[in-house]
């Protein structure tokens, strides 16, 4: 079946069975690899993309349900070689990605959150992103990055943030 939608502003026509997950179509048919095939049952958020302005799990969405929609992925956040969005900059500055595998899903969910007027309120961020799994960071720096972006902060990308509630000291021997 022929299905049309746009991805990052570019019109796409794919031939796919209607119940094929959007994730599969993006990755395998269109080679758009930012959404990750991690759990493929909606449990982790690594495949989240923005569909018509809303964050969605692309692994749960039948491609038929994406017909006629405008889809956005990490590839479309910043123009190639262009300036990163404040959220992407915050992700670097606050060291919010370690292995990086969850970053795409988090970035798209957080982008949708911010575009819908999300603030730096910690509880609201947890409500918006709480279904996303990150196994490396312990979430501290992810929350810090979203808060910083919500406050419109800009960053010197030559260094990372000083961690909250951290002290470093020497020891007497």
């Amino acid at each position, binding site marked *: 079946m022929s299905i049309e939608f746009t991805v990052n502003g570019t019109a796409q026509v794919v031939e796919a069975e*209607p*119940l094929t*997950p959007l994730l*599969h179509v993006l990755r395998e048919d269109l080679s758009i690899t930012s959404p990750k095939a991690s759990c*493929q*049952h*909606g*449990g*982790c*958020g690594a495949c*989240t993309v923005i569909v018509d302005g*809303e*964050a*969605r*799990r692309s*692994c*749960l*969405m*039948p491609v*038929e*349900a994406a017909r006629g929609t405008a889809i956005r992925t990490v590839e479309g956040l910043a123009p190639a070689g262009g300036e990163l969005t404040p959220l992407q900059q915050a992700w670097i500055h606050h060291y919010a990605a370690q292995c990086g595998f969850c970053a795409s899903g988090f970035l798209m*969910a957080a982008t949708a959150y911010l575009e819908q007027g999300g603030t730096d309120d910690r509880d609201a961020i947890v*409500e*918006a992103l*709480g*279904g*996303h*799994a990150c196994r490396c960071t312990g979430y501290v720096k992810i929350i810090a990055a979203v808060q910083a972006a919500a406050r419109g902060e800009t960053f010197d990308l030559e260094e990372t943030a000083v961690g909250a509630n951290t002290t470093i000291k020497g020891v007497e021997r």
Partner: protein
Amino acid sequence: MFGDGDGTLVVGGGTIVVPNIQLGFERPATALMLHRAGLGGIARDGGRVTIGAGTPLAELAGLPDPVASCVAHIADGEVRRQATVGGNLCAANFEAPRGDLQGVMIALGAHVRSAGKGGERTEPVEDFLAQRAGRLVLDVAYDEAPGAYAYLDRQHTHEYTALAVSAVRGADGIRLAATGAGPHGLRLPSAEAKADDPEAAGRAALADVQLADDAVASAWYREQTLPILVRRALEQLREAA
């Protein structure tokens, strides 16, 4: 619309079906996708609430308890924007309880309108759940009433409740129902009979359920905590009044 429904896979939001197809658990020859079937939407007419089967769970967030509290703890916002009321009502347990809304709707005294063999049918949720094979949910409707929701909350990234109790003060008295206490949502008539005494109601509830071990809780643990949740739901209902 689709014959008698046999052999046809009905797809609401697809949150259960799409992964199952990916894993080869289901290989449907024909599927009926409801996302453009016009079954979505919440209508309020006087005190009557009618929720179309295709309504995403996220749209239920504004309804009073027990609905709002229940919906707030089904997976996360992204899944709730995709998953539908019809799909949730028809969800079968898999490793852990699914169908968090089943108990809620039973407590609300909701009726399901469905299509299938023999045509359209409207019946209480508990009757529908007992014989849901081959039927397509069209909508679910209930009269607004004060309600409360008590649940076991083990937070994790893909959260569903292990056990939850809904309490509603309806026109004919208090109705109680549980999710996670049987193969699907169950009404708790023995507990309802003692609703004036939350402790006694809690103990009585054990007569109404079919507890089992699964991946998220044992039958023993559910037996220990069901009375507590019944009591908490009734106390919340009392405080809300």
